[in-house]
């Protein structure tokens, strides 16, 4: 077994032995239960409404708006929970473990520090991919059971959600090389919050036609590509909607006014590679 897989297996073993999965399972079931109740109530309470004399929203539109909004909420919840899991699995991987004396006995063994980092990344990413996928699937099924509709795209938004989580895990691992556990945890959730604010800014900017606001939001999304992936996921969920329903969705907190292009995906790959290089170089140069 390669050193990377040994480290990954060790990290995964830790999540099992320390009952991380039990805690995550219980809290996730609680989240899904609340989401199920909310979905059922939302579809039961939906009523037609109109915009003056210009047009009436049809019951079908309302069902679609409710579906997409609930799916957006589910995606937000899924991203948040998967991020919490990923960040807590990695926030003390290097400096935190070194300060506690856990790291030194491992890295004096004949494995490279690069392999150690990769092993920690593989373990955390694998856990988060499985968790995020299951959570996203559960959200889709709950909304479908409540409202009878599937989103326009299923796989694309799910993949975007997973990509967002992977970037957050990579950033958390990078932060763990330079920051103590507490500082890294705080930094990660502040970055996460900044990303979400950027997304909301983009929606507001698009709604009121403020290009400067949109540009700022766009720049933040470039600096924090997980937000770009989240927006891409939201856009995919609403991609089958058109007309007034689409406008209403975009005005809400889970609307995404525009899709991301191929350039963004390329940039995200470069971003991930840069994070890996920075983490490796930083770790290689760190005295333990």
């Amino acid at each position: 077994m390669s050193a990377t897989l040994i480290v990954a297996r060790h990290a995964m073993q830790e999540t099992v032995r320390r009952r991380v999965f039990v805690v995550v399972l219980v809290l996730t079931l609680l989240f899904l239960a609340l989401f199920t109740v909310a979905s059922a109530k939302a579809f039961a309470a939906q009523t037609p409404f109109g915009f003056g004399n210009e047009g009436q929203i049809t019951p079908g539109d309302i069902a679609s708006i409710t579906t997409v909004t609930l799916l957006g909420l589910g995606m937000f919840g899924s991203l948040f929970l998967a991020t919490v899991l990923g960040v807590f699995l990695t926030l003390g991987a290097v400096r935190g473990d070194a300060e506690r004396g856990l790291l030194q006995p491992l890295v004096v063994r004949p494995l490279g520090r690069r392999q150690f980092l990769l092993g920690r990344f593989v373990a955390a990413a694998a856990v988060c991919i499985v968790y995020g996928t299951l959570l996203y699937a559960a959200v889709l099924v709950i909304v479908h059971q409540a409202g009878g509709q599937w989103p326009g795209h299923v796989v694309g938004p799910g993949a975007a959600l997973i990509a967002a989580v992977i970037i957050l895990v990579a950033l958390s691992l990078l932060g763990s090389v330079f920051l103590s556990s507490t500082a890294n945890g705080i930094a990660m959730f502040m970055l996460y919050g900044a990303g979400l604010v950027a997304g909301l800014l983009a929606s507001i900017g698009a709604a009121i036609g403020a290009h400067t606001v949109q540009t700022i939001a766009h720049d933040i999304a470039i600096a924090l590509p997980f937000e770009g992936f989240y927006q891409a996921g939201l856009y995919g969920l609403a991609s089958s909607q058109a007309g007034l329903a689409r406008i209403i969705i975009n005005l809400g907190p889970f609307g995404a006014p525009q899709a991301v292009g191929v350039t963004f995906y390329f940039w995200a790959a470069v971003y991930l590679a840069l994070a890996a290089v920075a983490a490796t170089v930083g770790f290689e140069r760190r005295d333990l």
Partner: protein
Amino acid sequence: MTALEVRLLEKRYGAVVALAGVDLTIAPGELVGLIGANGAGKSTLMKIACGLVRPSAGTATVCGAPAGSRAARRGLGYLAELFRFPGWLTAAEVLALHQRLAGSTRGRTERDELLELVGLSDAAHRRVEGMSKGMQQRLGIAQALIGDPKLLLLDEPTSALDPAGRRDVRALLLGLRTRGIAVLINSHLLGELERVCDRVVILADGCVVAAGAPKELTQTGGVEIQTGNGTWRFPHAARADIPQLVSELVSDGVDIYEVSVIRSTLEDAYLETLERE
């Protein structure tokens, strides 16, 4: 081939000089003690040897390979001064993890041997979080011995051990010497080092200020004779003077019960060296 060779080794942490040109060679099977005040550079020297810290200048090689390289790390075992194993692992699992990382293929046989060697056979399936500090230190020593290292670096390995545990570690170290394993041991328990080490190196302010066999570093401090009239000390006498002294006392009608040569301890020698510096 030397187990450890250090030449003009320097390490600076900003304005703080931890090592200021240290030279040290350890031959296979040699047991070397490293002593010095807190902050003298002992742990830094060990960390450079095992690749945890990068030197600012100078070279360090382990079994001919540059310190920190994969080849060097294959040849050494290390017990840090401040270490911790994951509390959720059992003793046997800790060793199994390190066996996999070290590439050891000796499996359970090696684990059982090492646990027996450090007196933890009965605790093989006990979780680390349920172990005393002394037991964890024993486990740390077992972990350092995985993969038959050629050089063992032990940073304060007996600080948490009771007297019986220290005796066990002394016996263990002497056993390692017969197997050709070189040991560099850092400890403030100078009596322990005096009893087992072939050579002792004294560090002060990042420099080697004295080195040699414990007997070379310590000095005779006269002869002490217990007689029927009390204990008499002859501060300028040496071992060679004992027959004449005893003869004279006996001829004077003094009853003699015990004669001993007084030697300064390693602690005395260490403190004298630091005062001179």
